[in-house]
């Protein structure tokens, strides 16, 4: 029933100015105790199911030393993996080495996800991270040589002062890398980030939207399939792990600040390392009513270009979507479309999907 596992490694050698994820500076002495606590959590929650997707995210998992990584993979050995498992680890170009890549390959990792973000070094200070596109090229070439075919690269855009031309140059660079998967994120300034504290503002939504359109257009021209609001991939290289989220399917999330979705509840782990190590892991449990589960079904599936499968919905909830969320009105108003028994947000309105979701979910209240 539960066939996905997320593993959080919160350590980073460097803290990026925009990052809102659970993270902390890498400290040698913290790593092994953390990994022990992680192992304890896995032992407690994991019920020996066959796992189809594993995703090691962060933080920066690749900043762990080879020895520390070996301990991590040793822990994950007990996870029963399906023969077709998708096994991903997040890396940054700064900390990953050939040796680490070889280790990943050896333990069965078959998908890499790199944060490139931008190629323009003028944003180094603003983003608070190193930007070196030559290094990126080198590492990717190594990774391919070692045999990784399934690679994602993250691109960020909508930085203060960024131009459409700069975004286009970034896209061209990523295209030249010839990777199978590209995730793009417009910069969101969150409260508890360095940028948020400095009261930086997001760029105008008009320019942001233009950048998004440019990205969609160029990536599609080069054979990528736009399959989720901000995700693009070659045929057959969609992220199975992320599709678990978007299809509203269960997953374990272990580690500091990790989130899990288990039958009838969503659980969020603490971001406090000391509490986590003491086993006081859970900070928030959202018990889900059937209605809540339906709402998540919509929120998540409608991020996908293919939309929500109405038959799947019926199979899951034994009631038709229309009876719970009368969507026909929004279809008539040109916000939603029905195609091949899938309900989807009109493609050119995907970028304003919150507005539409709110109408769809709460419009009747």
């Amino acid at each position, binding site marked *: 029933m539960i066939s996905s596992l997320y593993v959080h490694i919160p350590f980073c050698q460097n803290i990026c100015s925009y990052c809102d994820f659970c993270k902390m500076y890498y400290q040698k002495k913290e790593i092994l105790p953390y990994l022990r606590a992680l192992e304890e959590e896995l032992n407690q929650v994991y019920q020996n199911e066959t796992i189809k997707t594993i995703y090691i995210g962060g933080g920066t998992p690749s900043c762990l030393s080879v020895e520390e990584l070996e301990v991590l993979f040793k822990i994950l050995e007990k996870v029963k993996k399906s023969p077709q498992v998708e096994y991903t680890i997040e890396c940054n170009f700064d900390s990953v080495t050939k040796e680490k890549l070889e280790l990943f390959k050896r333990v069965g990792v078959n998908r890499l996800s790199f944060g490139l973000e931008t190629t323009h070094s003028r944003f180094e200070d603003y983003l608070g991270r190193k930007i070196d596109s030559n290094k990126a090229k080198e590492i990717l070439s190594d990774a391919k040589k070692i045999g990784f075919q399934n690679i994602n690269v993250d691109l960020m855009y909508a930085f203060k002062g960024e131009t459409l031309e700069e975004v286009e140059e970034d896209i061209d660079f990523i295209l030249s890398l010839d990777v199978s998967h590209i995730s793009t994120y417009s910069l969101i300034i969150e409260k508890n980030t360095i940028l948020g504290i400095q009261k930086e503002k997001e760029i105008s939504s008009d320019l942001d939207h233009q950048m998004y359109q440019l990205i969609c257009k160029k990536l599609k021209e080069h054979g990528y399939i736009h399959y989720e609001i901000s995700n693009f991939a070659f045929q057959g290289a969609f992220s199975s792990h992320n599709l678990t989220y978007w299809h509203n399917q269960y997953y374990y999330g272990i580690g500091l600040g990790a989130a899990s979705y288990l039958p009838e509840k969503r659980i969020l782990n603490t971001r406090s390392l000391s509490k986590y190590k003491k086993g006081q892991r859970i900070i928030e449990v959202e018990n889900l009513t059937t209605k809540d589960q339906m709402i998540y079904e919509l929120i998540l599936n409608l991020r996908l270009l293919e939309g929500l499968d109405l038959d799947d919905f019926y199979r899951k909830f034994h009631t038709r979507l229309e009876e719970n969320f009368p969507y026909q009105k929004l279809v008539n108003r040109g916000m939603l479309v029905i195609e091949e028994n899938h309900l989807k947000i009109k493609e050119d309105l995907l970028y*304003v999907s919150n507005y539409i979701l709110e109408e769809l979910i709460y419009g009747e209240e």
Partner: protein
Amino acid sequence: MQQNIRNFSIIAHIDHGKSTLADRILEKTGAVSSHDLKNQMLDSMDLERERGITIKLNTASFYYSFEGEKYLLNLIDTPGHVDFSYEVSRSLAACEGAVLVVDAAQGIEAQTLANLYLALENNLTIIPVINKIDLPNANISKVKQELMDLIGFQEEEIILTSAKTGEGIEDLLEAIVKKIKAPEGKAEAPLQALIFDSIFDSYRGVIISVRVFNGSLKVGDTIEMMATGKKFEVTELFKTTPKEIKVETLSAGEVGFVCAAIKDIASVEVGDTITLEKKKAQQALSGYKKMKSMVYCGLYPIESVKFESLREALGKLKLNDAALVFEPETSEALGFGFRCGFLGLLHMDIVKERITREFGIEIITTAPSVIYQIILTNDEKILIDAPNKFPNKEKIKQILEPFIRTSILSPTEYIGDIMGLCQDRRGIYENIEYINRSRVNIHYQLPLSEIVYDFFDKLKSSTKGYASFDYDFIGYVPSDLVKMDILLNGEQIDALSTIVHKDFAYQRGKSVVNSLKEAIPRQLFEVPIQAALGTHIIARSTVKALRKDVLAKCYGGDITRKKKLLEKQKEGKKKMKQIGKVELPQEAFMSVLNVENKD
């Protein structure tokens, strides 16, 4: 006993220390100990909360001994919300004297004068007090001179106090006893008790504040309201010291509270006279200067099912706010609501705030309008309190609008700014009075419609807060006015129409469409905004379509957060009114009165 009663009010410009002075008097006379002062207030607040009373009863009775005699002093505070002079005037009607408080640093302000004139109209004995003499920037001699020059007090009758340190409070109490007359009136005469305030209590019904002028009132008496003719049996009488003290009777000269199990709030009118059924008074007391509503606006519940709750809320508010008037009206855009009349903008804001806070009803208020007199071509005269009720242009012979005369007290350096502001608002210059070398009283004639919205804010900001403002209604004056309509998405929205002067229409149209553009949040589709005189479009603008609101990243697996975000977004929308395809926030309805000269 009656000879030893003193009924008085404290009048002051806002922030001149009225409340602290009142607290200090209570403490000094032992009505409350300084230690209890806080406790007392907290206790009564709990009580209030328990009983659903949200406004304090505004009278305090206490004893003061002077030269071997014991005096009963009744301090009748003006109710918390003061919209210019009205609230003060009804409290003054219950008094024989008033303590006029002036801040030692600020000097005389516009409301000081306005309240003083009201007190004089009520034939009250005035005791001038300069308060806050402990302030480092107090300028006692200058303020004394103002009181002498402007009002004609003698230097020796001016009392100096510091409510903070307690200095001068004894002198003030002495002056109250010595100078303010004992109430006249006969205890054996037929009952005449003035209702000067009332509130609704869910346990006891309406609680009435009264000042007994003649006769006496006992628990068990059957009383009659002279204006409404309604009869009730008195269940309870009490005074506040400020603790509630039950009493058996209230006699001529006394102030207190009456409960009579009155559930129907409409039977009690502030300003009415209570008499006894068995021994009726010949006539009602003259009450107090009744104020007419000057400003009208529409109040609409955002959720249309709340219409009846809104009616009930307005009824309860009217209990201690006789100046509030309301009647049902319908708007094509907003549905069912009420046309409400207020004394001014502050009054309107308070009512709106209380409806939201005390009754939990989210409402939209339309832009305030004054009352226009319209002479039709058949010479019939009609009164119009809302722009959308304006008759067709062809039927109008003449339009008259209300004008007011200002008193703007300000330091001389801001004369230029103030005159500029008045000029922009179609003001007609009258004169400038010099109070002293550094302060002036500026008089302009202004259309009331030009001050109802943001005049006061603008005045404050262009004088760094130094100017104070008051006005008198002077009459109706013919004006060249036209109705300006607003169209959203090509549809005319009745609730957004305004009346503007013809010469200012283009400029106003432009600033209104621009401020609407700012006030209306982006929606899924573009919203064209137009201002029109009849069928003639005079200004246009566009609210651009929403371009982005999605979260690119789903926070790893933390999707709960996304749902919370949507819920928050929904809450925000609940405060908006859906009109056709467009969602309008409250600001949009007010922005039609925005008169920024933006180009």
